[in-house]
């Protein structure tokens, strides 16, 4: 089973990288883009084959290491 994990700064926390990207997009004429958030993407293979258990395992990985939940939020897909 493969997990695709997205980690971004929580909404409400200033994201200077997102802001810089937004500004660059604007400069290039992409004026319709707003609220740019820069994040991280982690992809990994799991030995686990049960969806429920895989879900719990990836959640634990995110809580313990992959995301710092003081400043970040995460979401993931399993397939």
């Amino acid at each position: 089973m493969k997990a695709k994990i997205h980690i971004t700064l929580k909404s409400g926390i200033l994201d200077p990288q997102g802001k810089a990207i937004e500004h660059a997009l604007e400069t290039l004429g992409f004026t319709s883009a707003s609220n740019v958030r820069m994040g991280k993407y982690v992809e990994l293979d799991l030995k686990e084959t049960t969806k429920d258990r895989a879900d719990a395992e990836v959640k634990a990985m995110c809580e313990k290491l992959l995301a710092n939940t003081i400043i970040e939020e995460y979401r993931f897909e399993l397939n």
Partner: protein
Amino acid sequence: MNFGVIVFPGSNCDHDCLHVISSVLGQKAIPVWHKETALTGLDAIILPGGFSYGDYLRTGAIARFSPVMGAVKTFASEGGMVLGICNGFQILLEAGLLPGAMLRNRSLSFICKDVHIKVENAATPFTGHCESGQVLKIPIAHADGNYYTDPVTLAALQANAQIIFRFCTPEGKVTPEANPNGSLDNIAGIRNAEGNVLGLMPHPERCAEDVLGNDAGRLIFLSMLDALKKAKLKTAVA
């Protein structure tokens, strides 16, 4: 006194710390490899600056799971003095030994320059040699020093006098302009509620002797040494 300096893969200020402890303070400085699991015979621990594990994932995120960190946690919980400088501060935050987290600098730049910090609390084992309100000129060198915490934790830090250093002007005014990285409430250094763990972004080990043209950082090391001596004396008398 015996000072242990933890060496993570990617630490690069460990030798500066070892030098200050041995040559400036005249104390025993012991490098401790991150694979160690026990901290025996040490009176204080320093987590030095650098780029542990290449700053991969987040600064300090991987170093906090180094084998030695279990022993550092035990050492701190038993009241041992722990000082985290720059990356060491980031590791203490990730390890939960200090509250909050680091965001990328507001400017997105790595900032390496002298800044001024105000000693907000001189009644700590790390600042006993400073005056309250004293301004220290100390260099910073980081990309992730933009301290963040939730409003409840910030209020607790303020109420318990846990904010030890704030970025300020050379005159000691804490202003937004004097804040180099966007840090919440101009925070440059905090301690834990118990008072025995301190983290700060500036580098006192880089300005601890006259030959370098600035010895403001020595005050922090001298404070630690004095506090340790007093604690030892107390134990001996008891």
